[in-house]
């Protein structure tokens, strides 16, 4: 196995499971729809809440799709093969996460203009929202990957994984929504964006390592 052949196989796999992508997009949309229906559908409330709603929905959609990231690899013995392949497991993990980010998060990003129209997001805060999504959804994947690897050997690991990962998502959601909130009142928003970038780089270093440790511990 080489990194390239691994990437090729993972691409095929993601493509064969494209229904998952559709599912997570639908889930994302449904969560967004819940808010106007459940709380308040007036433009006054929605325009204020839009970025928070989109962000919560995105985080939930990513969490649910990341949960089973390594499940199949665990059950069919692929994780063992990663470990004996002599390749660096953190890099394999990173390749896999990057690929899944492309397939799951990009559609969400592409939907964000439509949703921000539907939720009456003020025009001046769309680009800040988009940038925050761009910068921070990779961190959501990276952190979610740790949770997924930690619970990979459990049959019913879903809730546990949420319990572990959601507290780690809080800062990301806070900074991401404060980007748009600052933009809405005309304040500069580069500081929270920069922090989101910093969180991304930290997770980029920490997450593959931790995920690899958990994978190694789970396989045996």
């Amino acid at each position, binding site marked *: 196995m080489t990194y390239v052949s691994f990437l090729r196989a993972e691409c095929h796999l993601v493509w064969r499971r494209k229904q998952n992508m559709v599912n997570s997009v639908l889930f994302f949309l449904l969560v967004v729809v819940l808010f106007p229906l459940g709380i308040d559908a007036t433009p006054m409330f929605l325009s204020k809440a839009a970025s928070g709603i989109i962000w919560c929905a995105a985080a939930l959609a990513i969490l649910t799709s990341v949960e089973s990231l390594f499940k199949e690899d665990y059950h069919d013995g692929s994780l063992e093969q990663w470990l004996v392949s002599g390749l660096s497991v953190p890099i394999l993990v990173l390749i896999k996460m990057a690929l899944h980010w492309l397939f799951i998060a990009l559609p969400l990003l592409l939907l964000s203009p439509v949703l921000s129209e539907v939720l009456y997001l003020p025009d001046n805060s769309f680009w800040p929202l988009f940038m925050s999504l761009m910068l921070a959804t990779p961190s959501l994947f990276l952190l979610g990957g740790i949770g997924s690897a930690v619970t990979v050997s459990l049959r019913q690991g879903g809730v*546990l994984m949420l319990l*572990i990962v959601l*507290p780690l998502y*809080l*800062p990301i959601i*806070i*900074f991401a929504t*404060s980007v748009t909130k600052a933009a809405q009142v005309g304040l500069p928003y580069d500081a929270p964006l920069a*922090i989101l970038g910093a969180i991304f780089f930290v997770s980029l270093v920490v997450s593959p390592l931790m995920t690899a440790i958990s994978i190694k*511990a789970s396989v045996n």
Partner: protein
Amino acid sequence: MSWAWLHRLGSPKWFYGRFKAWPKPLFCLACLCLMVAMVWGLAIAPPDYQQGNSFRIIYIHVPAAILAQSCYFAMGMAGVVYLVWQIKMSPIFLQAVAPFGALMAFIALVTGSIWGKPTWGTWWVWDARLTSVLVLLFLYMGVIAVQSALEERSLADKTAAVVSVVGLLNLPIIKYSVEWWNTLHQGATFSITEPPSMPMAMWLPLLFAVIGLYLLSAAVILWRMQTEIMRREARTQWLKQEVLSDGV
């Protein structure tokens, strides 16, 4: 520098023998400190000029909050030590400290909200500190849940270490983010949470309470560690001899 002490500390046998006699005196000392603090703080210290007697809950609330954070820090460090050096004692420590820390976080939350009722008029305020203690409680629960969900010990140890280390890295970010979020929403209306330099008569009993709770945590954690060592090393010869000669 010699690392021998670290390796000795890593051996359950050495640790058990070394610290076997410690919990009881520590516990007595802790009780003494806490009694002094409680009597002094609840009966002798003067009432606050703004909050009257309701401020006295500080003598539980603040030590618990401090302990909750220290315990998490210690737990995260134990996690780092385990992941890097595979020291056998660190998962034992981790397992012993997690429920205690969670309890402290819980106490801090409950007393915080009880305190909030007379001072702020509501049970819960989305105050930066309260929120970050709430998140801390969730982080603790995550570690505990992982430990209990994974049946195989080595796997549970590793993953609990991973979860606590990641939590430790996140803790400053969480605290900072919550403060940021809070100040963006509302100014610091609750300046009461930042107590002005306290008079000695209020501060000293608080100091006693904090020290007492630290001692108590040391005693409880050592006890829990001993139990855990016995559980893990149940099959070893040295433990059999230890139990046969000294009893449990």
